[in-house]
């Protein structure tokens, strides 16, 4: 997006993760410390249980000029700041899968050492991957439940839409593509018009028409409550996991 590939240095224990980086023109290494030496903005993208070990490893090389951004789910700013030198600029980021197609939803929270400049930099860089907003740390688990896991809910819904169409006689491949486009289009309308989804829903419902009949079915199935339950369950799980 906003940074030339040559300015990016990626580090991983084995080559299998590094090929993709090399292919896009980034430099690679197996040495974490080298990343700290070469770079100002450092993203920590390890699995959560691996992170404490990595932090211990890089700690000696972390300086006041570094900006450390952790993507590890459930690892709090408090933990990150504890394992790094006092005053280090630390931020915590939670993306979601569609970042890979530049339509992600990301939230980040800043630690005590990070200021407006760092927040603005991160937001500016990540906006090329989708929506990026700063939030209080307490929203990060909610974001997981809403959007991190939320992507899966959408896939489930899309699959069900397509199956309905198949039942009514449409071939699966076509049904799937149309289902996806329907979701994409509806989402785009929400984002671009800024109108309340309830209003947009009403706009589609002609009196006595097909849509209102279908919506009645969804209401009968308590879809709304089920979705709320899902977001709640994922959020709670994120909180539980974080405490481990």
């Amino acid at each position, binding site marked *: 997006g906003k940074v030339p590939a040559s300015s990016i240095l990626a580090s991983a224990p084995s080559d299998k993760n590094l090929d993709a980086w090399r292919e896009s023109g980034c430099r690679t290494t197996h040495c974490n410390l080298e990343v700290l030496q070469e770079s100002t903005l450092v993203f920590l993208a390890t699995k959560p249980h691996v992170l404490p070990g990595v932090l211990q490893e890089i700690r000696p090389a972390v300086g006041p000029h570094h900006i450390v951004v952790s993507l590890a789910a459930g690892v709090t700013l408090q933990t990150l700041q504890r394992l790094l030198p006092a005053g280090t600029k630390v931020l915590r980021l939670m993306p979601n899968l569609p970042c890979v197609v530049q339509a992600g939803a990301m939230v980040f929270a800043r630690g005590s050492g990070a200021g407006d400049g760092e927040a603005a930099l991160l937001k500016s860089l990540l906006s090329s991957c989708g929506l990026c907003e700063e939030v209080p740390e307490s929203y990060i688990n909610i974001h997981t439940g809403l959007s991190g896991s939320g992507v899966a809910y959408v896939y489930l819904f899309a699959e069900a839409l397509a199956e309905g169409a198949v039942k009514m006689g449409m071939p699966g491949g076509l049904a799937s593509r149309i289902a996806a486009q329907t979701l994409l289009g509806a989402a785009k309308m929400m984002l671009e018009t800024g109108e309340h*989804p*309830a209003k947009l829903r009403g706009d589609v419902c002609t009196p006595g028409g097909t849509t209102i009949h279908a919506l*009645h079915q969804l209401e009968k199935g308590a879809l709304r*409550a089920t979705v*709320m339950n899902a977001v709640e369950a994922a959020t709670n799980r994120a909180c539980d996991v974080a405490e481990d």
Partner: protein
Amino acid sequence: LQKMGVNFTVSNKDTVKSSDVLFLAVKPPIIPFILEEVGPDIEDRHIVVSCAAGVTISSIEKKLSTFCPTPKVIRCMTNTPVIVREGATVYATGTHADVEDGKLLEQLMASVGFCTEVEEDLIDAVTGLSGSGPAYAFTALDALADGGVKMGLPRRLAVRLGAQALLGAAKMLLESEQHPGQLKDNVCSPGGATIHALHFLESGGFRSLLINAVEASCIRTRELQHLADQEKISPAAIKKTLLDKVKLESPSLSMASASKVSLFTSKSPSSKKN
């Protein structure tokens, strides 16, 4: 009504003779008999307004056409809160009713709430929504009050607060450009009390219950209308049992006003189910 200065008579005939606008406010099975009785006295100036659920304009026009070539018929559907001037009324004009006739009715009914014209085929849906609607609201209010009582409020206060909450919400919606979904959001602070409560409502399928209710009422109205049209029970049989009782038990009333409006009403005994 007499206390309000309304004129009173036991004669439907007198009522028709001294009025221009006739409201037929009898139970649907009685309508045909009222029409037969007053038919001969209907003149061109009369506007016959039927409030009887499920009774079609065409059925009334058919009945009256034996007496009057171009009867002016308007069908309306209102609801009980007209009593407190917050009624919801719709009307559909018949073949020979002019625009001014509709407007006259609209003016009259607008004095007791909201009134608008609709196509006749929507009247069943209106019945389901605002005709029966107050009953849904009373049920909700009773339950809300129970909730209040459960959590410690005295019953009277709980009822008063529940009713005021619904009244206020309805008023906000009517006066706002915003979608009810947006107004709902405005009440729900993140992680707060209201959103927790709403989740319960959604889990119980609250919305679908209300949709079901409106649908059921509308469908039942259509069924009743259909049954009435078929006239399964011989009119003579109904006439014998019902009409005599009606004449004995309750007088009809007539209201004198500037535009001479008549109100026919009778307490109908529990009629045989058609």
